[in-house]
């Protein structure tokens, strides 16, 4: 009986899923996804730019200590918010991928038209990181677990590691050593010295500076682990934004302002 009731209920909902409307056609979907892309890209970009931008702008900042601690935290916030919104509203596990894809377009437009054409830095020095592989994987995790708690804890780890691994592929050639001005430096260091940045002197880089306790080649793993922990916090900041700033206000009014 209980199962029958569940089946009936499911049937009603299924009919509602497949209902045809008089005025609501696919244009509404297109306008939603298309116009939301701008504000989503903007939110993700401003968060990345002002929390972790310096590490993303230049190859010589993409180090193995700070880049992977700060960037995952900064960049998981808006995807988390969108995960909540799009799962809650549409049951679509698309929030993180949608955000990462919109951010991808905004980042490349920004780097190309501003950093490259305006102030003339070569693209191989100023390329933006990609968050799309990380976004797909945590969206998949949400789809399979349907749980934000699990997605926050395990997903933060997946986000951090996938972010680092996918971008390390592109960074690898720039970590090859060369001799420049009498010293052994990476290609990325050479880019940073050669392409003059008038107001960003080399000492401004917040990167691994050969700390005393480097734990025998392990700093990047320590950084990854810590990056995961911090990203969990970032995930719940994003959940706050999605739940209380985006969904909670629906249909709610202030009586007096």
């Amino acid at each position: 009986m209980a199962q029958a009731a569940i089946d009936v209920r499911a049937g009603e909902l299924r009919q509602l899923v497949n209902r045809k409307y008089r005025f609501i056609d696919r244009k509404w979907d297109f306008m939603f996804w298309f116009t939301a892309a701008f504000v989503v890209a903007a939110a993700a970009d401003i968060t990345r730019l002002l929390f972790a931008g310096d590490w993303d702008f230049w190859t010589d900042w993409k180090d193995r200590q700070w880049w992977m601690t700060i960037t995952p935290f900064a960049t998981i916030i808006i995807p988390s918010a969108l995960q909540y919104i799009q799962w809650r509203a549409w049951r679509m596990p698309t929030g993180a991928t949608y955000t990462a894809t919109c951010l991808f377009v905004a980042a490349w437009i920004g780097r190309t038209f501003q950093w490259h054409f305006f102030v003339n830095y070569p693209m191989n020095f100023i390329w933006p990181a990609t968050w799309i592989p990380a976004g797909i994987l945590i969206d998949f995790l949400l789809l399979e677990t349907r749980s934000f708690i699990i997605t926050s804890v395990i997903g933060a780890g997946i986000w951090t590691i996938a972010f680092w691994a996918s971008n390390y592929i592109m960074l690898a050639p720039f970590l090859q050593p060369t001799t420049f001005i009498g010293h052994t430096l990476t290609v990325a260091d050479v880019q940073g010295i050669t392409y003059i940045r008038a107001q960003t002197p080399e000492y401004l880089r917040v990167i691994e500076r050969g700390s005393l306790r480097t734990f025998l080649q392990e700093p990047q793993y320590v950084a990854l682990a810590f990056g995961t922990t911090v990203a969990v916090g970032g995930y719940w900041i994003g959940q706050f934004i999605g739940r209380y700033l985006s969904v909670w206000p629906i249909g709610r009014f202030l009586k007096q302002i």
Partner: protein
Amino acid sequence: MQEQVRPRVEERPARAPTGEAPEIPGRGPTDWWGGWRWGFVSLLIIAGVAVAIRIYQGIFTFPWGLDSSTWQFFWLWRMLVVVELAAVGVFTVLWWGWLLRSGRDLPERISHREEVRRIAVFWSLVGAVSLNIYFEASFFPNQDGAFHQTLVRDTAFTVSHIPMFYLFFPLGITLAVGTYLYGRTRLPAVYGAWKGFPWSFFLLIAATVTEMMQVAMNEWGHSINFANAGAEEFFSVWFHWPFVLYGWLAGGIFALWGETILRLTQIEDDIVKEEAEVPSPEAAPV
């Protein structure tokens, strides 16, 4: 006397008594060139302005945008601030004024078709807000980082600040409030004044207003060198963070889509109910 007085209503094209747009093929409530027209026109206008400014920057930054003590900088850049603020000011007064004045003349009852059209126009305005936020929080901030980290800033009115802080930031306030005024006057079922002030708009408008206020703190931070943090161009510096926090308030924009989607489905349910009550489909009010 009466023959000489020509009532104004005779000069307007024929309209249905409920004040709706006439039915023209291709100009229906959910046609691309009907209810959705402003969705494209507004985006093209905003994008056009941004592209024009970017081209202007490409022509006049090197060398006249680099030295704020020259007279060329005064005329090419400081005056641009004046032009931008004046343009936004004029547009704001005209548009808000029109929304409020014309809103008073609208009939109280409208057809479902007309309400759907208005929701499509509303979504077009939300799209304009969204695109404006892209220019104010992504396109020009990228330029801001590029300009300030690689050249020497010597004024608060830098080449990259001018379109960002003094055009798209205030325009964001204009568009957000204007969209609210449209909703309040054209979509009373969703945003009517009798319901109170919607939290969704409160957050979205708060985002645009606080971003504008944050400009002042930003310039203070850059000039004061407090804790040695203003002199160097570290983009992730602490006094930039409020830009992000205030920007998160724009999450309220999603509630606008949510609220109007709920109204759309309510309209559809009403149509079904009304058609069930009225046997003849021709007589059913749509």
